[in-house]
C-alpha cells in the first residue's frame, strides 16, 4: 500500500508541471479583433494561454530587434511576410517547419523555414458609396482613377514608415509601373491625400463614416467594414495589384519553445483555415484544401501580381526613404 502511494505521488509530481498553466507570449500584427478570437480558439483546443500585444508591422519588428538579446515573446502572429524577411536578416526568428506544411504552397512560406503563411490578402480600393453618388462617379477601377481631382483631400491611406499595408502599396506600384514612374504617380496622388494613418487600416473607418472618400487597404480590413454594414464599395484595380502574405513565426530564443511550436502547427492546420472561413476573418487561407466562400475573396477575379518576398524585404528601407523624400515633401 505504502509503495503504491509513493509511486502515485511520484507520478503526480512528475505530471504536475504538465498541469501548471501553460502559456506563450506573442506580439501580434494581426488586428486585435481577429487575434483575440484566434487565440481564444487555440486556448479552447489546447489549454495553452496566449498573452499578446498588438503592434503594427514596423513597431513589432523594431521591438523584436531591440529585444534580440533578451526576447520577451515566443511567436509573432500575422503581419506581412516581408516584415518577416526583414526580421530574418536581423536574426530574430527561429527555424521551424510546422506539421502539414506540404498543404501550403511553397511560394507562401519561407524557403528556409523561418515563417509560414496562414493567409493571403490582396490590396484593394474601398470607396464611400454616398460620395460616389453625390459626385456621379464610378468606383475607381485603375490606379490612375484615384488621381481624379474630385478626390482632392479625400483619400486616406497608410504611412509607409509604420505600416505594412503602405509598403505593399509601393511594391504594387513599382511592379506595375517601374520604380521612377511609381514615385511620380505617388507624388501626384499626394495632392489628394487627406491624411496618412499610422496603421494600415486606420483610414477605413473615416471612409465608412463619410469623413473621406476613398483609400487603399488590405481586403481583410475593407471587407470587415463592409460586413459591419457601412455603405462602401470594394474594387480591385484592373492594371494589377499585389498581395500580402499574412505569416507567423517563432522568435529565436523563445522561452516557451515547445508550446510555441504547437501554436505554429495549429495555425497551419486545416482546423484553423476552416476557423478563418467560418468566422469571416477575411484572409484567403493558404492551405490548398480549404476554400473561402466570400465572393470578394475569390482570387480568380483579381489581377494578382506575384512579388518575390525576398525582393520586398531587400527594398523596403530604400522605398520608404524615397517616399519620404520624393512624395511627401
Amino acid at each position, binding site marked *: 500500500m505504502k509503495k503504491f502511494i509513493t509511486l502515485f505521488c511520484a507520478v503526480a509530481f512528475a505530471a504536475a508541471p504538465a498541469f501548471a498553466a501553460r502559456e506563450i507570449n506573442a506580439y501580434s500584427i494581426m488586428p486585435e479583433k481577429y487575434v*483575440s478570437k484566434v487565440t481564444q480558439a487555440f486556448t479552447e483546443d489546447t489549454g495553452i494561454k496566449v498573452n499578446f500585444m498588438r503592434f503594427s508591422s514596423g513597431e513589432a519588428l523594431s521591438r523584436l530587434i531591440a529585444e534580440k538579446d533578451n526576447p520577451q515573446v515566443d511567436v509573432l502572429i500575422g503581419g506581412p511576410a516581408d516584415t518577416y524577411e526583414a526580421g530574418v536578416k536581423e536574426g530574430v526568428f527561429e527555424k521551424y517547419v510546422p506539421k502539414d506544411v506540404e498543404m501550403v504552397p511553397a511560394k507562401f512560406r519561407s524557403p528556409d523555414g523561418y515563417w509560414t503563411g496562414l493567409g493571403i490578402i490582396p490590396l484593394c480600393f474601398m470607396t464611400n458609396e454616398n460620395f460616389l453618388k453625390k459626385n456621379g462617379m464610378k468606383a475607381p477601377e485603375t490606379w490612375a482613377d484615384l488621381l481624379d481631382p474630385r478626390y482632392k483631400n479625400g483619400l486616406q491611406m497608410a504611412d509607409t514608415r509604420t505600416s505594412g499595408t503602405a509598403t505593399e502599396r509601393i511594391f504594387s506600384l513599382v511592379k506595375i509601373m517601374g520604380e521612377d514612374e511609381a514615385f511620380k504617380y505617388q507624388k501626384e496622388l499626394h495632392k489628394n491625400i487627406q491624411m496618412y494613418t499610422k496603421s494600415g487600416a*486606420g483610414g477605413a473607418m473615416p471612409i465608412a463614416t463619410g469623413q473621406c472618400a476613398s483609400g487603399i487597404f488590405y481586403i481583410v480590413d475593407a471587407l470587415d467594414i463592409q460586413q459591419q454594414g457601412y455603405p462602401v464599395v470594394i474594387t480591385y484595380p484592373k492594371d494589377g495589384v499585389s498581395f500580402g502574405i499574412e505569416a507567423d513565426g517563432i522568435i529565436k530564443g523563445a522561452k516557451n519553445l515547445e508550446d510555441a511550436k504547437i501554436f505554429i502547427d495549429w495555425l497551419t492546420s486545416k482546423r484553423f483555415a476552416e476557423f478563418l472561413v467560418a468566422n469571416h476573418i477575411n484572409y484567403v487561407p493558404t492551405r490548398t484544401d480549404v476554400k473561402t466562400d466570400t465572393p470578394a475573396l475569390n482570387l480568380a477575379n483579381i489581377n494578382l501580381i506575384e512579388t518575390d518576398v525576398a525582393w520586398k524585404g531587400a527594398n523596403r528601407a530604400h522605398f520608404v526613404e524615397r517616399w519620404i523624400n520624393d512624395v511627401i515633401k
Partner: protein
Amino acid sequence: MISTYSQRPRLDPVSRMVIATLWLALGVFVLYPAFRLLWIAFWVDGRLSFANFMPVITNWYDRMALYNSLLLGGAVAVSGTVLGFLFAYAVTRLSLPMWFNVLLSSVSMLPLISPPFTSSIALTLSLGPNGILLKLFGLSDFNFYGFWGTFLSETLTFYPVAFMTLTTILSRIDSNLEDAAYSMGASPLRVFRTVTLPLAAPGLANAFLLVFACSLADFATPLVLAGHGFPVLPTQAYLQITGMYDLKGGAALSFMLLVPALIVYALQYYWLSKKSFVTVSGKAGGRSSVKGPGPVPSALIVMFLSFVIVFILYIYALIFWGSIVKVWGINNTLTIENYKYAFTFGNKAIKDTLIIACIGTPIGGLLSVLVGYATERLKVKGHKTLETVSLLNFALPGTVVGIAYVVAFNSKPLILTGTVSILIASYVFRYDSAGIRNVIAALQQIDPSIEEASASLGASSARTFRKVTLPLVLPAVLAGMRYLFIHSMTAISATIFLVSVRWSLITTRILECMTELQFAQACAFSIVLIVLVFIASAVMALLARVLCRTGNAGGGIQ
C-alpha cells in the same frame, strides 16, 4: 521665513542611510538613463561625435518637426494662458453665484483627469471632415488635421494647468488694491491694465511656461491629429524608433526636444520663483466685497466661458455616446457590449494599470517626503542638486524619459524591460515632482523650532520625523500622492515604450483601439478610465480630509 537654524544639523546614522538610499535610487532611475541616452546620442565608434545628429539636422522633415513643436507650443501657450486667465479671473474677481464657480472649476478639472485621446477623438468626429458640428452649422470642411486641430485640442487639454496656477495667484492678490483704484474713479479697463495685470505678471509668465512645456511634450494629440503635414518632435522620435527601428536617430531627436524643455524648466524654476508679487500679509483691514469690472465686460466673459464649458461637456458626452452605441453613425442601437469588451479583453490592462498605480503611489509619497525633508530640513551637502535631480524626469518630455529608459534598461548591467518595476519607476520618478514641491513648500511654512524642541527633548531624528514633521506635512504629501495616482492612470508618452506582454496599460489599449478603428471600444475604455480616476481621486481627497483634521489643508498643487 527666518530660519532659526544657525548651522546645518549633525546627521545621525539613520538620516545618513536614508540620504544614501535616496541618492542611489535617483542615480539608478534618473541619472543613469539620462546618461545612457546622451551616450547613445553622442558617442559613435568610440568617440564623441555629432554623427547621429547629422541625418536629423539635415533631414528637412525633422527640422520641420522642431520648428513645428516650438510654433505649436508657443501658440498653445498663448491661447491656454489667455483662456486659463479668463477662467481664473471669472472665479476670483467676478461676483458669480457659487454654483457657477463650482461648475467652472470642476469642468476645468475634466481634461486633467482624462485619458490623452478623449478630446482628439471627439474633435475629429465633430470638426473633422464631414464632422457632426460642421454638418450641423452648414460649414464647409476646413482642414482640421494638422496645425489647427492639434492647436484646438491642446488648448482645451492644457488650459486647466494655467487656470490652476492663475487662480492661486489671483486669489492671493489683495483685492483691496483694486477696490482702492475703483474708488478713486479709475475705469475697469484702467484698473485691469495698471493694477491687476502687473501684479499677475509673474503668474502669467509661469502659466505660459507651464502650458508651453505641456504642449512641447504632448505625444498623444499630435499622433492622432497632426498628420503627415505637421510633424512634431515627440511623435517623430516615436516613429523613428518604432517605425524605422532607429534607436540612435530617436535618441538624437529626443535630445533635440530636451534642450527647449530644459530651458523652459530653468526659466520657470530659477528666474520666476524669485519674483513674487503676492501680497500676503496679516490682513489689516476688513475685506470689502470684490468690485468687478462692471456689468458689460462681466457678461461678455461669462458668455464666452459658458460657451467653452458647454463645448467641453459636449466632448465628453460624445465620448460617452460613442461608447454605448453599436456602430457609430450607422447603427445607433444602445448596447453595453463595448463595455463588455473592455472588461473581458481589457481586463488585464485595467488590472495592471490599477496595480501599478496602487504600488507606485505610496512609494512616490514616501519618496517625496524623504526628498523634501532631506532638501529642506536636513540641508545636507548638495541638497540643491538633490532637489534638481529629483525633478529632472518631470522636466523632460515623456517620450524622452521613455526612450532613455528603454535604452538604459534593455541591456546590461540592469535589465528591467518587460517587468513591472520599469513602469512603476517611470511613474514614480516622473510624477513625484508635485509631491516634492508640495512638501518643500509645506516645510518652508512650518517653524523649525517645533522640531528643534523635539530634538532637544531627546528624540532621535527618526522619531522627530515620525511624530512631529510627518503629521504636519501630511496634507501636502497626500495631495502629491493624488497627483501621482492620477497621472499614473492617464499617462502614455513615456510608458508607450515600456509596456510589454506581461504588463499593459489602459492608455495603450485606447491608442491601439484608435489605430484599429475600434472607436466604440476606445470610448468605452476612456469612460472606464475617467470613472476609475474620478472615484480614486475622490477617495483620496476624502482620506486626506479625514487624516488631516487639524490645521489647514495645506496641499498646494492638486
